[in-house]
């Protein structure tokens, strides 16, 4: 005997016969068999309710259990079915294939509701149904890109699948900016730096100019690889192209600080100070209006402003003696000749005496050098004496 009825979620209609068929019983019903079947169906759905399902499975099973209860009471005790207990299979509605021209909008809606699983399901269905179109390939890759950006997708196989889908969509429709952006995001997620740089080059060829988010990602790659000059140029291009994209500016600022500014510290030459100041200017420009990014750059701005300041670093006793002996005529030239820029005093370390302590006393100097203190030539000696 077939027991397909046990998995049926809703009766076909409110008719008496269909309500009986819901429990695998035909008229005239045998009360004992009906009771047994009701119990059996309830127990099956109870196991779905308490089993390991997708998150949406459990509430669905709970709804079916309520429905079983209502229909059982209607059949066994003539309790009227509540109006809302009809019945027509809303699950079927949601399983209707989304028309091609509504696919983007539909997926976008699901993603905005946070239903990534649903978006991927619909995209997969679209990919299988509309094989001649680039759109389902694109929406599938786009949904995976959103999942990666939100930290909900980390499986390399799935990301690679999204990437293949996007590459195929790009081959068919290279004029769509969003495809280049999504592809860049997935390459970034997989850490495939060289392919990302190549993608930006191809996007420039196809669109005339690469999308700002892709340029921003390339900036990150270049900076990470140590190509500071080109990285900074890309950073400027990216936020010039999308000044309102605060997230992009935050990411690019962080990349500049991590991969350009910090490796330049500690400063060891005037030329280095100049390069540092230029990079700080770019970072500050990039961070403008993004509070977290501004906080990240602030100590570097303060240090860049202060590092070039010349401070008297000679002997105070000698300066006083000379000043008195020369009726203070030597004071100005002596001050100039004995002054050093703050970066040099910091670089020379404790041998500069109280001037060093004065420079080091600034919290912005310490913050700017976080993680770089061990790079000073004097740091090992200090650690050894501790």
């Amino acid at each position: 005997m077939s027991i397909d009825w046990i998995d049926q979620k809703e009766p076909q209609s409110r008719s008496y016969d269909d309500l009986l068929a819901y429990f695998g019983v035909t008229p005239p019903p045998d009360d004992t068999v009906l009771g047994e079947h009701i119990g059996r169906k309830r127990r099956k759905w109870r196991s779905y309710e308490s089993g390991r399902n997708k998150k949406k499975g459990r509430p669905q099973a709970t709804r079916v259990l309520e429905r079983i209860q209502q229909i059982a009471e209607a059949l066994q005790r003539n309790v009227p079915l509540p109006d809302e207990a009809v019945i027509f299979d809303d699950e079927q509605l949601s399983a209707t294939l989304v028309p091609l021209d509504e696919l983007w909008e539909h997926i976008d809606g699901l993603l905005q509701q946070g239903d990534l699983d649903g978006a991927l399901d619909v995209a997969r269905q679209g990919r299988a149904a509309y094989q001649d179109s680039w759109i389902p390939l694109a929406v599938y890759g786009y949904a995976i890109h959103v999942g990666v950006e939100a930290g909900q997708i980390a499986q390399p196989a799935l990301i690679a699948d999204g990437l293949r889908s996007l590459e195929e969509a790009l081959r068919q429709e290279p004029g769509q900016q969003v495809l280049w952006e999504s592809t860049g995001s997935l390459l970034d997620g997989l850490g495939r730096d060289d392919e990302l740089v190549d993608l930006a080059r191809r996007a420039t060829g196809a669109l005339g100019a690469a999308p700002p988010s892709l340029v921003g990602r390339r900036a990150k790659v270049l900076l990470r690889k140590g190509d500071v000059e080109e990285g900074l140029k890309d950073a400027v291009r990216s936020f010039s192209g999308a000044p309102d994209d605060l997230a992009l500016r935050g990411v690019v600022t962080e990349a500049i600080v991590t991969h350009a500014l910090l490796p330049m510290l500690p400063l060891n030459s005037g030329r280095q100070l100049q390069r540092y100041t230029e990079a700080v200017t770019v970072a500050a420009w990039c961070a403008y209006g993004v509070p977290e990014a501004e906080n990240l750059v602030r100590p570097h701005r303060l240090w860049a402003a202060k590092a070039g300041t010349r401070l008297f670093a000679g002997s105070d006793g000698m300066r006083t003696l000379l000043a008195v002996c020369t009726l203070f005529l030597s004071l100005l030239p002596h001050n100039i000749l004995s002054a050093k820029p703050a970066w040099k005093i910091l670089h020379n370390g404790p041998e500069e005496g109280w001037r060093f302590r004065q420079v080091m006393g600034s919290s912005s100097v310490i913050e700017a050098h976080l993680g770089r203190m061990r790079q000073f030539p004097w740091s090992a000696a200090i650690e050894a004496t501790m």
Partner: protein
Amino acid sequence: MSERVVGIDLGTTNSVVAFVNDTGVAEAIPDEDGARITPSAVQLQADGDPVVGALARQMAVVEPDRVAQAFKRGMGERTFLPDERAFTVDGKTWSPEELSAVVLKKLRQVAERHFGESVTKAVITVPAYFGDAERKATIAAGEIAGLDVLSIINEPTAAAIAHGLDSGGETGLVLVFDLGGGTLDVTVMEVSTGGALNVRSTGGDHQFGGVDFDQMILDRMDETVRDEAGAALSENPYALQDAKAKAEEIKKELSTKASSTRPLTGAGRPVMFTLTRGEFEQMLADHLAEIDDHVLHAIEEAGLTPQQIDTVLMVGGSARIPAFRERLQKLVGKEPQFTRNLDEDVARGAALMAAKTSNTADPRSQLARMPAPVDVASHGLGVTTSRSQNPVDLYNSLLIPAGTPVPARQEETFLTMHDGQRQLLLTLNEGDSDDLDLVQELGESVGDFRKPVGRNHPVRVVVEYTDQQLIRASAFDGETSEFLCNIEVKPEGVIDDEAKRQAMRYLSKIDVG
């Protein structure tokens, strides 16, 4: 001298470690204070090593944010907290398997102090209801604690082994009703001559157990305190924690007494709280109906009727509640039996299995002669396929149904849907329903055909359930037998190798208090 092996019952509320002594009897190992049951609670101190056990549970009142309990309910997932927040202490996020590893490390220490030698091999029990993710997480927890996990076995199977060997060879169909702190496991098994155990079906609810009954009593306490003192228990964390402990005491006491009374604190003054057994049973009434469903469902899944069950065996601390015993007796028509020790028998059964698996049991003993138990797949395994050319018509095509004896291997040939198809998406699901919403997706993988294939091109899919109840799935080109892809099941909650190595390094250095 042979290497020491132990059996561990890693429970939601309590854990026990046991071994088989020189006379072949399995016994629980006491800790330095003589306690044979270790509460599964972990306190992560601000400075100092983690503390496990009764002290940690007591410290929950003082430092609720530093004490983790009932984390077994989140095994295989990122977190165990009901609101899905991560459990983070001092900036470090602790996964359920890392916390379980701390408990296992404690149990390992207990065993090592008892024997005066190193213990590295163990059999760990899990609820029969556990799926692949939870089983893998349990093995990972054992490895982090420095244990070589010989095998993981189902708790009801372990209990039946302990009971069977104690009671001396009853045969027939046994219904094991295991109601512990956090899970209800219902298992139907067949015991044959010579002690052979074959699991026929499993069922239950992995979010239902003693802690839920404690919560019901706690809710009633809260109502009483609100009525009499005009304040909620939750307003004072100390009063709340005190009430939690008393709720558990009352629950236990009502198994032997008609009523139980405890003083509570509300708005700074004492409030007496009394609960009768009748009131408690009324609170359980809704759940009793659910329990009926789980028991009957397991019996039906085994292809049996309640009248065919020969023995009802009750296991787990919450099985002491008389209402469950009476309900089972009414349902099955047999007087339920209890294992010798409801709290320790799962660990004892695991110890017997550990001795048998490691060949350390006396070869003349009944244990050594007993055939290895045959478990069944607790959940079905299937792959996502389409019933037609309509791509929305996807369903779970079941290859290995729940109840199939493990190890199991099943293969089936499917057909491609489209002309010029270049790729295949293999999705493995855990669950029996054909509805994809009612199953758990274990993983997916994409395979590339060497060259585009036509519609109705055969693809052979193989799904395996190993004797460790671990899962593998592979797809092959049906014409060329060329490998296309396989599923590497990587549940989201199971920590990655680097995190596992770090956790192992950390735990190897500390002495759990």
